[in-house]
């Protein structure tokens, strides 16, 4: 099992969710996060002059997939989230030791 953490553009959430569901994964966790990579910050206006915001709003999508599904789910997320501009985001993949479905107590791959 692998956990995918995809940091994506806010406006790409719908496309990524649809792509994941098409790959057979309809369960995911989504959170509003802030950060920046190479894109840098954002300049906003005060009453006079401007100020810089270092961290931009992004969406983090977390989903746990079976090892054999990893390449195609990564591919699905990447193509759904890409615009080609700076700030498209980043995806991290982590190993997962175990999983438990709270309702039934099922463990391992059966739980995801």
């Amino acid at each position, binding site marked *: 099992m692998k956990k995918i953490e995809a940091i994506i553009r806010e406006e790409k959430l719908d496309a990524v969710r649809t792509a994941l569901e098409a790959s057979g994964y309809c369960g995911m966790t989504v959170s509003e996060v802030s950060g920046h990579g190479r894109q840098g910050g954002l300049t906003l*206006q*005060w*009453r006079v002059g401007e*100020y810089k915001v270092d961290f931009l709003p992004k969406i983090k999508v977390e989903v746990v997939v079976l090892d054999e599904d990893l390449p195609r789910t990564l591919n699905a997320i990447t193509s759904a989230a890409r615009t080609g501009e700076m700030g498209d985001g980043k995806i991290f993949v982590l190993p997962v030791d175990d999983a438990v479905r709270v309702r039934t107590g099922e463990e391992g791959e059966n739980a995801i």
Partner: protein
Amino acid sequence: MPVNSADTAWLLISSALVMLMTPGVALFYGGMVRRKNILSTIMMSFAILALVGLLWVLYGYSLGFGPDKGGIIGGLDWFGLRQVGQEPSSVYAITVPHLAFMVFQAMFAIITVALISGAVVERMKFSALLVFSVLWLTFVYCPVAHWVWGSGGWLSRLGTLDFAGGTVVHINAGVSALALAWLLGPRKGFLEKQPMEPSNIPMVTLGAGLLWFGWFGFNAGSALTSGGLAASAFVATNTAAAAAAFTWMLLSWIHRRPSLLGAATGAVVGLVAITPAAGFVSPVMGIPIGIGAAVACYYAMLLRAKKMGVDESLDVWACHGIGGTWGALATGIFTSVAVNSAGADGLLFGSATQVLKQLTGIAVVWTFAFGATWVLGKLVDVTIGLRVTTVEETVGLDISQHGERAYGGMLR
């Protein structure tokens, strides 16, 4: 004089309108500070609404408007509203119950003290703010109100015109705000140019909207009668607010993008500037007065931020001090006896003397407000201290001063 029902109704409604301006200031300021200080910022104005409301009926009204003592201050003859009842006063608003005039003035005193809080948000100790507010009302507001509006006050005898409070309210609060911010020192991170992001611009706009609404009571109510002069002041007020809001929006657009925070600020400075002039100038003069206010305050704010380096956090000085100064000066330029026979003819109508009288009033209030506030602020600083600790400031004043926060946490 017998009580006039129409005048009384208008003045009581106007008092209620001006009352609503203080919660308006609270929201206007609250939306401009960081999330961790929203509640404490709103609390400053709301507590002053209660505090000054009490002090005013106890002794404030008497000091400001009571029987004159040498042109400087009112006596304590009206302490606890003694001799202030349902019959009209013989000198103020002689067609309405004296109590109606008293409570109208109470709302002015309240908002003037509340305005100053914008300079000290995010770092001033709440207890120190309360003590300072009592001192400032007593030793700065009451005397200045007496000089300009009190029967026998020395500036009114000199002929300085101030229809609804350009000097008493706006210059007074704005200049005092600058002095207090200087004493208090900058917020942590200000000198390092850390961004201080406004937490809620829609809330700022709601506050500006309530101010605009309440200002009709402030200015048109200051006619103290419900006739043509009130209507004239009402239209002048709306015109100046509109002109200034639009001008500020254009200024931000020229620089970058049309800013909502800018338009809301513009409306307020337009209202500030028309305040002393509202009942002395023809309503259409609201346009040049409003445009002038937006330009003057915009550049005053730039100067404060870029050159003066003082953390007068929400620019009370630039908006009220400079807006009020421009308004007081503009009154001397645009005033006309055709509008108000109790006024004078200004520069535009061939007389330069009124401008000089206005400049005198401006200079006196600037000097007194700055000096007296400095002394009172210093007094509070050496006794109980003006500032919260660094840790309290970092955590935010909502939690450290009030044990509450504006928005609930994750667990609902």
